[in-house]
């Protein structure tokens, strides 16, 4: 179950010919089993693109992405099913749920897919309903939430449901793409505490994408810094933040506003 997510010399480009834009340039990165790896950098540095490639929303132009021993980039057949062990939580709680479906329906979809992946066709609708209640309980939301529409929940509550949807897929790796940057700082802590608790309990690893170094410092074991598509520094969080090797990292740290 615990497997590393490995980016091997991954390059991702957009456009053709002269207007080619390189979003990620030969990135080598490993998300180790059970760790929370921070990925920081400015907008346009390629952090999100890298994550999207890992779940198949973008295709690398070269290099490959592995989960354990399976290549999940350019995946076909069984590798596509394997790739479902990598799940993603998105930034914008406004748009990460279908506005016309209830929270329960959205979670149910994730459970159906997980059951199908594991060849477990026996999961009846009744069993899944119990599972939905358990998921909502796990993210500290009342069971009645299942019957509600996304617009009836606050941003923080929706992000909790987004976490529930990700863990419903029984992930090995969760990619958290700026999951609190659209939230008020007063609820940020509870969402991150939840992610951290679930990670420890369920043992998945997290690629934690953020532009907020103070948050990364608190929640991440290691941190990677990206700039203009290049991975420029990786290391233990405290080491990188207290003794950065790169000037750019130093610049990022200096820019963090203090109270």
């Amino acid at each position: 179950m615990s497997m590393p997510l490995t980016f091997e010399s991954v390059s991702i480009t957009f456009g053709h010919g002269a207007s080619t834009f390189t979003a990620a340039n030969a990135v080598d990165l490993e998300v180790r089993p059970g760790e929370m790896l921070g990925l920081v950098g400015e907008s346009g540095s390629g952090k999100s693109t890298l994550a999207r490639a890992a779940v198949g929303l973008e295709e690398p132009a070269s290099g490959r992405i592995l989960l354990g021993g399976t290549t999940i980039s350019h995946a076909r057949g069984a590798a596509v099913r394997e790739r479902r062990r990598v799940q993603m939580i998105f930034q914008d709680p406004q748009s990460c749920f279908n506005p016309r479906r209830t929270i329960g329906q959205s979670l149910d979809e994730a459970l159906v897919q997980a059951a199908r992946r594991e060849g477990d066709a026996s999961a009846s609708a009744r069993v899944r309903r119990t599972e939905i209640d358990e998921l909502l309980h796990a993210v500290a939301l009342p069971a009645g939430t299942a019957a509600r529409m996304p617009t009836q929940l606050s941003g923080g509550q929706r992000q909790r449901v987004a976490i529930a949807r990700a863990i419903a897929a029984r992930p090995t790796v969760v990619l958290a793409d700026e999951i609190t940057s659209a939230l008020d700082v007063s609820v940020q802590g509870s969402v991150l505490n939840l992610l951290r608790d679930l990670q420890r309990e369920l043992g998945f690893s997290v690629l934690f994408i953020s532009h907020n170094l103070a948050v990364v410092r608190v929640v991440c074991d290691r941190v990677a810094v990206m700039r203009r598509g290049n991975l420029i520094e990786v290391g233990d969080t405290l080491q990188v933040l207290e003794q950065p090797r790169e000037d750019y990292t130093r610049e990022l740290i200096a820019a963090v506003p203090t109270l």
Partner: protein
Amino acid sequence: MTRTTHRLLTVFSSPIGILAVVACLALLFLAVFAPIIWGAAAAATDTDQLSRGPSAEHVFGTDGSGRDILLRTLVATRLSVVMALTATVAGVVGGVLVGLLPLIVGGRIGRWIVAAINIGVAFPSLLLAIAFSVILGQSGTAATLAIAIAMVPSYGRLTHNLAASVWGRDFVSAARVLGVPEWRSVFRHVLPNVRDPLLVNAAITAGNALLAFAGLSFLGLGIQVPEYDWGRMLNEGMTRIFVTPAAALVPGAAIILAGLTFVLLGEVLGQALTPASRGRITRRLRRLRPTSAAPADARPVDDDAVLSVRDLRVSAPGADEQWLPLVKGVSFDVGRGEIVGVVGESGSGKSVTLMAVAGLLDAPLHVEADAAHFDGAPLTLGTGARASSLDHRLGQRLAMIFQDPMSSLNPALTVGSQVAEPGLLHLGMSRAQARTAAIERLEAVRIPDAERRYSQYPHEYSGGMRQRAMIAAGLMGSPALILADEPTTALDVTVQAEILAQLRRVNEEHGTAIVLVSHDIAVITSLCTRVLVMYRGRLVEDVSTADLREGRATHPYTRALLATVPTMTTPRDQPMASIPDDADFSEGSPTAGVEVLRAADDPGLVEAFGDPDRVAEEIS
């Protein structure tokens, strides 16, 4: 769902809605019953009365074969409408499928399909209909098919455009990441979210189909004798238009009326399905006037302050014809040259307060204030109440900077001309003077190579440079006050620091006062000397930054908010502090928030207050 039903009922009970319903029912009645009731009578030929004018026996006269024109027109409703609707249904279904197909198959084949749709759209649809009608032969069925085919490209493109924008949204991505097959994602997540505009368009398309069908029949391509529809009747009547005009005019009028019915239905559906149609409710609400429960602030306005506001109230029309208070009686002063921060969560009313001061709030919002003073003169705060004489003064003395510099700059105009605009508008500068002044201001905010940059467009600027250009535009006059609404939220941290430094420089060099609104208390404290804390539409604390830093904030909400901000020294081995959803720090129950924290039993939260008992004592 119930809200949509409610909206449907509201719209369909409006005059235009009733008209649409009545017209549709009439059309339906005629289509179903006219051939049964008048079918035989309409087919009867009266050889004694060929091509006669109106008479008691035949209201609109008779055609060349002595048949009653009115009855034939009524009977023809069924064929005309059924054919048009059949063609519409086939065309719309075909178009929707073709439009969704590129998303399902994806990749290169998907792009080819999109290209094919685009080529199809290049041909006028009536031309396509005629061409296919000729190819498929002269019959009603062939004409229906031809019109349906002609509809597919335009409807396909509409569907594709709508669907592609939904396809890019996160909930579709989430479904794909979960492994939901593409076709199911399309039908489960995309189609329901583009359904409304497609329905509205389908009704309007039906009107066009009716017209196209009549056109084909008129050309002799559609319905063939002995069957007849309105187009066929028009064709037959046209030859004798000067003898018996009614033979052509009556079916012509029928086509127009039926076409209007469909367009009307589309219009009403559009109103019902788009949530913007709240004008009526708002008008009724305006008469009700919001009542303010907030205690009036008795302090007079401070004439020495650059901005002084007393008891500002802003309300929005809510559900059930109730006013929803957004700002509940806020009073504050901003001294000359002072930098004041306004902090609060989303929905606390901080941005609305700022917009109200700038006079940027329009109906349906309702703005009121007991008194306000700006830069030595009274300021009228109210919805649309800004006097035109004040425009110039505000234009010169008040500058506003918004969150997203990409949307506050017009992408079609050069940055320079937009920076120069206040000079032309408010300061009576000539074009050349304004240009020189604008370049000076751009240099002042450290835009490199300002002369060349002047004639560049917003997309050629980086996010930070755009925001600096906005500051430059604000500096064109000699502003006494800059209102900045989340000016760095859309920017990267390194750029954020640079913009904050720029604002501080403006303040030091020109003595301009600044009101900075931000959700990020760290941004506020790094620039401001005084902080106003807003919570649920009220100002709960007015505290100096120094006191805030030293932990001397008194309101529990302020303290909780401060504790939730992670810094580079936050302990890593403890849960992060946060404020629970159900915490209530409202006035009247100052300890309520503490109670919630105690009940929540979250070490991170209790940490936010130190010892809850002590805080409770302190407050009471």
